[in-house]
């Protein structure tokens, strides 16, 4: 038996022993997600036990080095762990922006001290992070950021506001782009970290068209931030932000916002019935679903190729923009078809049968796919300039 096979057996046994049955049920709603953090309330004992078991093994961040709270697994081992978890339908023990975003930034740009200091609490689910990039009025245009940190020797005093800060009302700390040099429009931004309990920080949830409020507006009024709480270099926060945007896009295009890339027509054939020829009994919708399915299977192939190339450095650095563009547009189309297939049932907004309007709300939610993490228009600009090398403008 190869080492990897041995590892697989070990993981399988560990999961069997440690993953509670409740944690093998599908996620039903937001409440089932374990976000961690100072004020997090576990939904039940199983959720808590599962997190603690994973923390002990380093399995909340299996590929991070052990000194930072990970399990130090190789990419092959990480893949096996994921496969085995998927096999038993284990829920993710811990989700957080700390794991997805700040962690990778610190691993790349952080000092050794910062890594130890910040990554461990993330891995243990003790500190929940949020992200502060966009500002009212800036949107896709990060150059126009206005939030300013005035240099006061050993600390900055930060004033301004952020928008689209995910779950800022529930987060403990924020990683945040703050202008620290007004003379340099393109640079002059620092990637700061600070506690959301700092005096002067307030948050206000934003109600979305889906009826949910996953985002906030966040206001900074003379917030004191110690001068050692930044990542990368002062005035070079761009480098960190760009790296993270690429990382986010990779996540989104690698499946996240791409949604379930499975056939849509097959599922609807049941709801619609079939005609004598065995075809879904709405010929035009059938045609649109078949065209969509064709695009889904094709996109899945591209996703595989992209990941294969990305991992081995063969992908064009801007190709994640293309994946993001194609994947998010496709996902929006999927949900238009889901609504169409669902007919008047799918219009229901709060009935029990509709699971509280789940289809309608998801459909509306997908409209943000092509806006968040860089709009489709920005993606197309980047492809045009950086991949096709089209001239200025």
């Amino acid at each position, binding site marked *: 038996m190869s080492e990897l096979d041995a590892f697989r057996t070990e993981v399988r046994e560990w999961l069997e022993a440690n993953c509670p049955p409740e944690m093998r049920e599908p996620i039903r709603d937001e409440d089932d997600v374990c976000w961690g953090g100072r004020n997090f309330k576990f939904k039940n004992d199983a959720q808590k036990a599962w997190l603690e078991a994973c923390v002990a093994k380093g399995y909340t961040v299996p590929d991070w080095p052990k000194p930072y709270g990970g399990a130090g697994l190789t990419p092959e081992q990480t893949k096996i762990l994921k496969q085995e978890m998927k096999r038993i339908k284990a829920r993710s023990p811990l989700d957080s922006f700390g794991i997805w975003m700040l962690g990778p930034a610190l691993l790349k740009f952080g000092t050794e001290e910062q890594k130890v200091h910040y990554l461990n609490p993330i891995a243990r689910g003790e500190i929940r992070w949020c992200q502060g990039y966009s500002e009212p009025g800036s949107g896709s245009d990060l150059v126009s950021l206005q939030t300013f940190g005035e240099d006061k020797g050993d600390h900055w005093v930060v004033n301004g506001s952020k928008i689209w800060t995910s779950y800022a009302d529930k987060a403990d700390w924020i990683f945040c782009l703050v202008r620290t040099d007004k003379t340099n429009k393109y640079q002059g931004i620092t990637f700061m970290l600070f506690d959301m309990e700092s005096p002067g920080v307030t948050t206000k949830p934003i109600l979305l068209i889906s009826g949910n409020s996953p985002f906030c507006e966040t206001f900074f009024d003379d917030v004191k931030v110690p001068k050692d709480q930044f990542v990368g270099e002062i005035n070079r926060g761009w480098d960190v932000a760009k790296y993270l945007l690429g990382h986010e896009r990779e996540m989104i295009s690698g499946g996240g916002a791409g949604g379930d890339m499975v056939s849509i027509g097959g599922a609807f054939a049941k709801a619609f019935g079939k005609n004598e020829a065995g075809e879904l009994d709405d010929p035009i919708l059938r045609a649109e679903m078949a065209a969509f399915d064709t695009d889904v299977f094709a996109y899945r192939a591209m996703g595989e190729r992209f990941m294969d190339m990305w991992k081995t450095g063969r992908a064009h650095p801007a190709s994640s923009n293309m994946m993001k563009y194609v994947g998010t547009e496709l996902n929006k189309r999927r949900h238009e078809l889901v609504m169409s297939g669902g007919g008047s049932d799918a*219009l229901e907004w709060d009935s029990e049968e509709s699971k509280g309007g789940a289809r309608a709300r998801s459909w509306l939610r997908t409209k943000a796919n092509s806006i968040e993490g860089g709009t489709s228009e920005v993606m197309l600009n980047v492809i045009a300039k950086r991949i096709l090398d089209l001239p200025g403008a």
Partner: protein
Amino acid sequence: MPLYHNDDQTMLKDSVAPFVAEQAPVSHLRKLRDTADATGFSRDLWAQFTEMGLPGMLVPEAHGGLGMGHMEAGIVLEEIGRNLTPSPFLSTSVGAVAALAKAGGTQAGRWLPAIASGEAIIALAIDEGAKHRPDRIATTATRAGNGFRLEGKKCFVLHGHVADMSIVAAKTDGGITLFAVPKDAKGVTADPRRLVDSSLASHVTLDGVEVDADAVIGEVDAGGEILDALLAATRTGAAAEMVGVGQGAMDMTVTYLKERKQFGKLIGEFQGLQHRAAHLYGEMEVARATVMKAQQLLDEGSEGAKLMVSVAKAKAGRAANLAVREGVQMHGGIGMTDEYDIGLYMKRDRALAEFMGDVHYHIDQVARMNGY
């Protein structure tokens, strides 16, 4: 007749447009929604509609209405669409009136004046499943005593929980028959559901509902033609409302393009967005012309109306859908917030798209009517 509004129609528009914009703008919808209004529309507003003579505009003069046509109703519906005004106008004053006026007889005599006077709200109980399939009606009406006994389930019945009367399509021995089922009929239960656009539509159960023989709208077994009239009118009306929704969304978006700055420019200066906005404008103009043509053919009683009605519902559906999608996308993050109106346009468009047959249904009808 030329395919633009004549002087009378322009006058009508000039009085209806400011009326709706002032009395029932988008904030009116928001208020109903945020107070979880249980009626689905404002009865005060309906009283104002009545003062303007709107509920009975399609009702023949002999029955106390204004005897106007679909072109005129379309003018009102476009403004209703542009302002996202909740109202029973489409079901009551367009769909039900078309059926009753076509059928004549007792029920027409009873309900048309009540519609014209603003007293009666009528619901259309046609659909029986999540998709519009009026050629597959399973609800049955069997002879019982002096009348009929109705058995079946209806859904997507707008205003069904508050309507004074519902027009119910049912299978009878020799065809389809339409029935006027009053609100208080025994065995009728309406289960209202809040929809994505905050309107209320009911699942209606007909559990051994007994009605008199004169509840038949028109003749027994001869409801097919009346149903066709109802469907043609309601579809065309929904298409007109969608033109209003699309136009409202497009106008908001074009205005935004002229105000919002990104990367140091008004975003409306970017050719990528300009071309998309211009393309949308073209699609909206096509939809508008198509809806007017359908209205004209209906008003003329032309044979070609049926085809053009399906073309209109399909085309208005595509154009308005493009308008709201481009609207949300071009607004960026703010377009995703509940505070901003563009998302409400997307929601209303979705409900109207489904009502009385979606784009796919009507494109399929176009193929069938052309023999393939």
